[in-house]
């Protein structure tokens, strides 16, 4: 069998694998989100469907799929239905270069980090298409808001990631992970603690999570770019958002928390550590969502332009200076 064919088969398996992984994550995270929210407010969360409401997300998905697909009058139907797909498809590509374990990786590319950053910015395009094609002024306004937010938070995110590449000298996520082998002291979080904090905050903004969830805010700001979407049109945006959450948390644990390496010196390395770190970060995101009130839009942009951007620039320059010395 030619190497080309072998690679192709491997890639197809990897894509199917990430689809399954994405779907499973969406189900589990929706359930976790509602359960955590419940427990923080000292109520049970979903409880009736299945043991402790475990089948609730499945039933919700079924309900979502059985609803009618509506296209608004005078909307640009092609762009309108392209938008959710465009938001969903790149997420699958995002899972490819993330090393979940020494051998659990979809596609080991040298430019893994670049690939993730490039494909994740597709979301902005999908959002603006969705808002524009809906033939709804609130949709357009919501899209403008969401894009202003995504673009703004992309910059400090890029700068902090750049500081990591300055340190490691590579864009390959596997190599960045390999450099953090050994004990917990080798992790990038120690020299890059400021970058880590900025990355976490920018991650909230980038994935439209509370307290920066002005792109959605379905109950308070009458949604936004996805006002007109029904059924799985909305469902795809929803799943894509959870996909981005998982990707960002995975990238964060690869960049700063040593990826699949254990904290004790490399005896129990494996995908379980990666999952543990990713889910710890996801838990933190959910925890923060149910703790902090939503910021106002000017506050959101102020946090980014007045604080995150200068701090990220400072972090980058300091890293460059130290690496040069």
């Amino acid at each position, binding site marked *: 069998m030619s190497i080309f064919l072998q690679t192709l088969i491997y890639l197809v398996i990897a894509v199917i694998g990430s689809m399954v992984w994405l779907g499973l994550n969406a189900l589990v995270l929706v359930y976790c989100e509602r359960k*955590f929210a*419940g*427990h*923080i*407010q*000292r*109520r*049970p969360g979903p*409880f009736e469907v299945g043991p402790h409401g475990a089948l609730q997300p499945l039933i919700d998905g079924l309900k979502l799929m059985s609803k009618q697909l509506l296209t608004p009058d005078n909307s640009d139907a092609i762009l309108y239905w392209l938008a959710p797909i465009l938001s969903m498809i790149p997420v699958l590509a995002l899972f490819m270069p993330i090393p979940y374990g020494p051998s659990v990786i979809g596609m080991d590319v040298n430019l893994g980090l670049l690939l993730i950053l490039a494909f994740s910015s597709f979301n902005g395009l999908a959002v603006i298409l969705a808002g524009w094609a809906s033939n709804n002024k609130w949709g357009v306004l919501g899209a403008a808001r969401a894009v202003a937010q995504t673009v703004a938070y992309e910059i400090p995110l890029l700068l902090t990631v750049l500081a990591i590449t300055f340190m490691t000298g590579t864009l390959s996520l596997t190599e960045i992970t390999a450099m953090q082998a050994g004990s917990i002291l080798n992790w990038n979080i120690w020299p890059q603690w400021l970058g880590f904090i900025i990355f976490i905050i920018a991650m909230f903004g980038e994935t439209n999570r509370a307290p920066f969830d002005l792109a959605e805010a379905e109950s308070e700001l009458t949604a936004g770019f996805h006002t007109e979407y029904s059924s799985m049109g909305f469902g795809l945006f929803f799943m894509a958002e959870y996909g981005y959450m998982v990707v960002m948390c995975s990238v964060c644990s690869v960049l700063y928390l040593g990826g699949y390496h254990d904290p004790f010196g490399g005896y129990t390395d494996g995908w379980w550590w990666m999952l543990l770190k990713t889910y710890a970060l996801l838990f933190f995101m959910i*925890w*923060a969502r*149910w*703790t*902090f009130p939503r910021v106002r839009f000017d506050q959101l942009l102020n946090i980014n332009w007045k*604080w995150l951007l200068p701090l990220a620039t400072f972090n980058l320059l300091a890293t460059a200076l130290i690496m040069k010395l």
Partner: protein
Amino acid sequence: MGKFRENIIQPILDCWSLMVGLKITGKYFCKPLITVHYPREVIDDENLETYGGHVELIGKPKDPATPKCISCMMCVTNCPSKCLKVVKQKAPKPTPEQEAAMAAAKEAGEKVVKPKAPKNPAKFTYDYTLCSLCGNCIDNCPPKSLKFSNNMYWVATSRKEMNIDLLARLKEQATELSAPAPKTEAKPATAEKEA
């Protein structure tokens, strides 16, 4: 210097409040739930006592089937929702002996003593669909004959069922009190769960 403090130092100090917030919600996350899963368990009696449901009558201590009510209409006058209806009892027809006594008194030029109407009401109905549970009737009741019930699990399928006869309810409660209490199937949520 003031500007520097206001714009740079204060925001950094304010970040601490975010940690405090996380600590509070984290603490609540670890605490046991206080919600009661209704069909499977019910509120324990201690917590049910403090629940203020619809209005109901209080019986006389010696005769629990008869209300303390004196039909003064204070509750009806003070009710902003007009959900209470009280009908006074009429005076009973005098017996032949009483009639004779009255006639004798009249002839003798004395004061005629007519039989008085009993004070407790003939009818006392209550429309829960109108009630706003303000408690004005309870506050203004001179003989303290009204109270909030702790009838928490009352459900009706029509407006008519919510229009109840409080006298009949009091009678039922009186007979229930004398009879042994029926066992409820659902177990009450235990007190330790609340702690």
